[in-house]
């Protein structure tokens, strides 16, 4: 049997209250170095759903306020390393977050952006990935 190396990280909790969202991001970011252990790299997909979409709001000033690297910084790193990153359309609409308030990493030269998609498309990703990790 081949590797089950397509892993989907689903972030459902808001930032800065539990460690979960940040750990989702650091785990997803480490996919690139899994090849030291196995034949192929792990291919990550990251999706933000429910109140977890609040991780995607830009201008997080956690460093200035508390001396801690923001989740925004990790999301930008993810985009800069071409990780497929989805955010649930219904949830950003429910919470009234406009698309221009979402993090982008164009200042880091990233081509990848956070893709706003309906929940159904996130469900389809769940079908296509081998393993699921809900944070």
């Amino acid at each position: 049997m081949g590797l089950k190396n397509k892993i989907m990280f689903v972030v459902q909790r808001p930032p800065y209250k539990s460690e979960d969202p940040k750990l989702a991001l650091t785990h997803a970011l480490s996919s690139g170095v899994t090849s030291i252990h196995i034949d192929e790299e792990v291919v990550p997909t990251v999706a933000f759903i429910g109140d977890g979409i609040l991780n995607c709001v830009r201008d997080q000033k956690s460093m200035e306020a508390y001396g801690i690297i923001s989740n925004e910084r990790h999301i930008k790193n993810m985009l800069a390393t071409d990780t497929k990153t989805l955010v649930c359309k219904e949830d950003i609409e429910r919470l009234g977050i406009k698309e221009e308030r979402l993090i982008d990493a164009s200042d880091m030269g990233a081509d990848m952006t956070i893709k706003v998609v309906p929940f159904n498309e996130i469900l389809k990703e769940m079908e296509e990935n081998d393993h699921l990790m809900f944070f």
Partner: protein
Amino acid sequence: MGMLSIGVFSSLVGSMDLDFAVRLARAAINKGHTVNLWLSGNATALSKDKQKEFKDYSFPDKTLRELIGKGLTVVSCEACNQSRGIQKEDMTEGINRASMDLYLAKAAQSDRVLHIGVE
């Protein structure tokens, strides 16, 4: 027989998620499956040596040690431990310390992955 990876991120005491994870690991190992356990976030508290048993607190430590003897692989997040002041020499014997890429690699090799976030 298959391979199961369990990742746990919940607290040692109070949440009972670690009790659950260790009991599930025991049942799987007793049925002949291979089990990997990844401890990250608050769950790294389970890798600390010298936990005192109180009947009032969760104490999966004891079963965990038995399972390590039966082949359970336990890996605990290195940075999570360091940030909490848990040094390598403070850790329970048989628990390894590594970064998350090892968890993902193990997951990719596993038939099943059960990832348990914070409680």
